[in-house]
């Protein structure tokens, strides 16, 4: 049978193409446009090639922000994933407390990001904040607006508070999907609690944990609102993560060219790392 070529099908995908064009391709191409040109603000543009990219990649400021970003992301991953799994393990599997726990866990996720930032900002203020005041009262010299360590401590605690729930919920979903027969078989095989975790619960949670790590990686690498409200990148540049640095270049200094180039580098880093993560974890799965 001959297949007839019918180009009408293109019309059917047209709405999607238009939608994607307006919310992704056009904005992205605008950024590409900026990153390859120089402008002096009166809407005149001059071609500058890959100069901005070279500038960014040679700028110590960019590498410092990237370093802080990586430190932030890996610290919160190292805390949130084990903590989330641990909390999920202690949650009840059935009974009336299940819904109570689930609602309690979801609460932080429901709060708007800038509100989270504002909450923690006030909470941690050394003079009037509950946490800050209390820390000082028990003898710590705590001031997150002045001291780098304190700023990082507050930033990371805030993120752990805000996002561990996501890991908990995903891990919990993985845990409750394990059939009872596995636990019964493990009892009969004489497995210890640790072995049950190591050989049943952890392998069965692997898929959801992969997703949890991937989501937390991407989200924390993109994080902007909360640190912006909490510390604004300070004290000095101490908590200036990539997104905040980008914001300073693009909207503070109005250097659209370097900001465009940096955005694209930023975007590629996330894309590449997520892809590597995903491929590695899925390949493990198949083996």
């Amino acid at each position, binding site marked *: 049978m001959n297949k007839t070529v019918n180009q009408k099908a293109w019309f059917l995908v047209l709405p999607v193409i238009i939608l994607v064009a307006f919310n992704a391709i056009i904005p992205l191409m605008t950024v590409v446009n900026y990153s390859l040109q120089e402008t002096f603000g009166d809407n005149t543009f001059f071609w500058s090639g890959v100069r901005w990219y070279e500038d960014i990649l040679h700028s110590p400021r960019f590498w410092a922000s990237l370093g802080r970003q990586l430190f932030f992301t890996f610290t919160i991953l190292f805390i949130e994933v084990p903590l989330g799994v641990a909390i999920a393990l202690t949650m009840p599997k059935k009974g009336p407390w299940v819904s109570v726990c689930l609602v309690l866990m979801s609460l932080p996720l429901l709060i708007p990001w800038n509100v989270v930032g504002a909450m923690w900002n006030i909470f941690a203020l050394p003079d009037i904040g509950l946490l800050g005041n209390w820390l000082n009262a028990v003898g710590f010299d705590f001031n997150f607006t002045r001291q780098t360590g304190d700023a990082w401590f507050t930033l990371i605690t805030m993120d752990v508070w805000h996002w561990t729930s996501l890991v908990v919920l995903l891990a919990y979903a993985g845990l409750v999907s394990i*059939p009872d*027969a*596995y636990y*019964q*078989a493990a*009892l*009969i*095989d*004489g*497995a*210890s609690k640790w*072995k049950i975790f190591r*050989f*049943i619960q952890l*392998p*069965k949670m692997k898929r959801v944990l992969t997703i949890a790590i991937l989501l937390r990686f991407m989200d924390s690498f993109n994080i902007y609102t909360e640190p912006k409200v909490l510390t604004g990148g300070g004290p000095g540049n101490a908590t200036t993560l990539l997104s905040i640095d980008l914001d300073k270049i693009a909207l503070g200094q109005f250097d659209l060219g370097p900001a465009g180039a940096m955005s694209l580098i930023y975007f590629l880093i996330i894309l590449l790392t997520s892809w590597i993560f995903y491929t590695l974890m899925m390949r493990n799965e198949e*083996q």
Partner: protein
Amino acid sequence: MAKITLNDLRHSYMADPKVPADYALKKLDVEWRDGGAYALLGPSGCGKTTLLNIISGLLIPSHGQVLFGDRDVTKLPTDERNIAQVFQFPVVYDTMSVYDNLAFPLRNRGVSEDQVDKRVRIIAEMTDLTGMLKQRASGLSADGKQKISLGRGLVREDVNVIMFDEPLTVIDPHLKWLLRSKLKELHQRLGTTMIYVTHDQTEALTFADQVVVMKDGEVVQIGTPVELFEKPRHTFVGHFIGSPGMNIMPCNVKGGEVAVGGTAISVDNASALSGKSGAFELGVRPEFTTFAKSGLPVQISKVTDTGRSRIVDARHDGRSIKLLVEEGQLIPDGSAFLAFDKAHAQVYADGWLVE
């Protein structure tokens, strides 16, 4: 190894059971001989799995005792009972190799590595897993995984009992037969007590020396396959075991005389009938029902050819009576008379055999 005794065992999943219907198990007194091959047979929801979980310690019964030998283990946790259990759906440890899966129950009990290796190889040989020992367990097909589950159940030598909870549900039909005879063979070789739960009569009858038939949380009959076939103690057993099941028809009993619709029938348990009351029923298997010159008048309504024999569906008073007719024998047209083998015809009162 030890004899297992269930003493006045009752269990309810409810907190405060009152009427008998609240109980998943109603008063069981069963003794499982050491080294026996038992099948626990009954329809879904009759309490088979509950009973199994009580023996393995996954469930603590609401009343009664479980004894291993003379030792009361009713409240003992699973790992202290030294039992093995194979579940309906395969349970494998995905991240381990087939070898490590089989070795797991031994290693958890601190068995030395060379002893582990010896046992694993023997069991792998028995379950046809030798070629796959190095593979990861997650990559196996459903029946391969179930073989691992079986293997893990068999790997410990000193268990009190091995229990199988409908282990062949997920297995392909042709492999089912193979694995079933394998289990039978393993029982003969190992001599461990085995309890095999199933709702499939063929599985139960081929595997077990003794079949325990359960219905609604009660044991209806314990007996050899032959006893269950020839002398079912309850109409349920008669109907549940055999294909087609036993013919059950209401009958009148007066003195020692039994009659179905005006036709006198001689039965095996006639002497026990005097003084008994209840709703009487006559039970005769299709195998022991034949055409005769005179007897119970019937109309032939349907003949089904099963190859080796034919199942004749005859009707008396609107009620179906089946009989098995060997190949080559003539089947009369229209009306006929039926005779029953006296030795295999018995009267039931309220469902129970009159004894």
